[in-house]
């Protein structure tokens, strides 16, 4: 029962255009575990992930009340408070989208992008971080000879792993994944499942998934989204 907690959501209420998506949700997410979120389409799974990295804020007509706390270096930090800037939060809480979204540049530049944002300019450090993240995402062998080709030349599964690797470059403590295998065949999906299980060691993972068999394979906890709230299963 007493597992360490990484994220706490308190009294979360969220709406688009005054239509509530969540009402008074309270949740805790276990550290170094995979929490799966399931539920019917359109219930707010993707929206919930964006609450954890504040990405919803760019949507017009979205409103939120409540608090989200994450544990950083032994301290509970209110992510909507003043102590943590949005860019800093997003480096701690990485996100992988429902459809792969590489930037229109080379594989290398995609990987270097998060490092460029933080102003890291040490070439050998950049190289080291990029190859480490690509290896972690099981992509290194497939791309090591074509790092300067466009990222759009990769297959769907490779693009998805590139996006995971790109999110890993800044060594996030939490990784949000929105249906990371929905566009992949079984083989490619199982590569990503293995990857997620291994990542538990470094990160706390929250994975949206439609596939119940996948959930039972990889998840430590599963949450089902009901109308306006969650149910533990």
């Amino acid at each position, binding site marked *: 029962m007493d597992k360490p907690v990484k994220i706490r959501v308190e009294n979360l209420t969220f709406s688009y255009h005054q239509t509530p998506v969540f009402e008074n949700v309270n949740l805790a997410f276990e550290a170094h575990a995979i929490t799966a979120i399931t539920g019917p389409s359109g219930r707010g799974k993707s929206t919930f992930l964006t609450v954890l990295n504040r990405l919803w804020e760019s949507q017009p007509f979205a409103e939120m009340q409540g608090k989200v706390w994450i544990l950083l270096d032994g301290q509970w930090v209110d992510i909507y408070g003043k102590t943590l800037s949005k860019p800093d939060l997003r480096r701690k809480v990485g996100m992988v989208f429902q459809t792969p979204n*590489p930037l229109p540049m080379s594989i290398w530049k995609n990987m270097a*992008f998060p490092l460029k944002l933080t102003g890291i300019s040490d070439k050998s450090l950049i190289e080291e971080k990029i190859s480490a993240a690509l290896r972690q995402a099981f992509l290194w062998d497939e791309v090591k000879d074509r790092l300067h080709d466009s990222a759009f030349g990769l297959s769907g599964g490779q693009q998805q792993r590139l*996006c995971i690797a*790109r999110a890993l470059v800044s060594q996030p403590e939490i990784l949000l994944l929105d249906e990371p295998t929905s566009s992949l065949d079984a083989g490619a999906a199982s590569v990503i499942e293995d990857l997620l299980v291994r990542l538990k060691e470094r990160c706390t993972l929250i994975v949206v998934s439609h596939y119940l068999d996948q959930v039972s394979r990889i998840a430590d906890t599963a949450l089902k989204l009901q109308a306006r709230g969650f149910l533990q299963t």
Partner: protein
Amino acid sequence: MTRVFQKTARIVFFLSAAASAMAAALVFGFLLVFGFPLIGGGEFFSLLTRPWSPGQGLYGFLPMITGTAAISFLSIVFALPLSLGTVCFMGGLGPARISRLVDGFVRFMTGIPTVIYGFLGIFLLVPVVRTLFTSAGSGMCILSASLMLSLLVSPTMIIFFKDGFDSVDVRYIQAADALGADSVQRLIYVILPEAWPGIVTGIIMGLGRAMGDTLIALMIAGNAVHVPGSILDSARTLTSHIALVSASDYDSLAFKSIFACGLTLYVLNAFAVIAVRRLGGKRGPV
């Protein structure tokens, strides 16, 4: 049925494309034919390099070419940072509500007739320039005209720039945001490079408007027919020259020369477009 429809549509669109291409070619031909008396004896190039002095039989447009080039170039130099700044503000640096207001205002500005700008120039800008720079004489000079002209072309440029900004795939923007880009980084690393073709087009349209505009230069550039030596000198553009000379008598050689003048403007404009396209390249600098 749909096949027939598709065929007709294709023909109609082809015809309208052909018509506009024809119109451009016809204007060119028309200028060539009517300018012939002056162009004919291999004199076109000497027209480009000579001064304008009808009393001595000299009908060169060198002063007007420099006037047009200086005023339109300078107006883009002023308008570019202004327009780009406005679009960046609307594209995420500024608050959404104010951005919408600015957007509405810019659209409203495109509808203001040029003569209003000219008028404002005479009553507001020219006196200021006159007091600030003693060497500007009356204040009617290249600087005044290009400042006013930059206000005229900015809305056009802003609208094209904004189209470029709006065409950037939101997925790229989301990706950058989720990776921790702040609003300036998002702009510099993602939006500007993607919006680059729109920016180049905007500059071309702005330049076209600046070169083609007649009234502002006519009203506040001073219209002197000598090659300007500084931006505080009075100058005459090709367009105001055409406007001024066409008021004179129909049979004079001066009148005939304005067809060559139009032709010069046409060619100058084409060169400017090609130059900007060349410099702009296909993609952004980043």
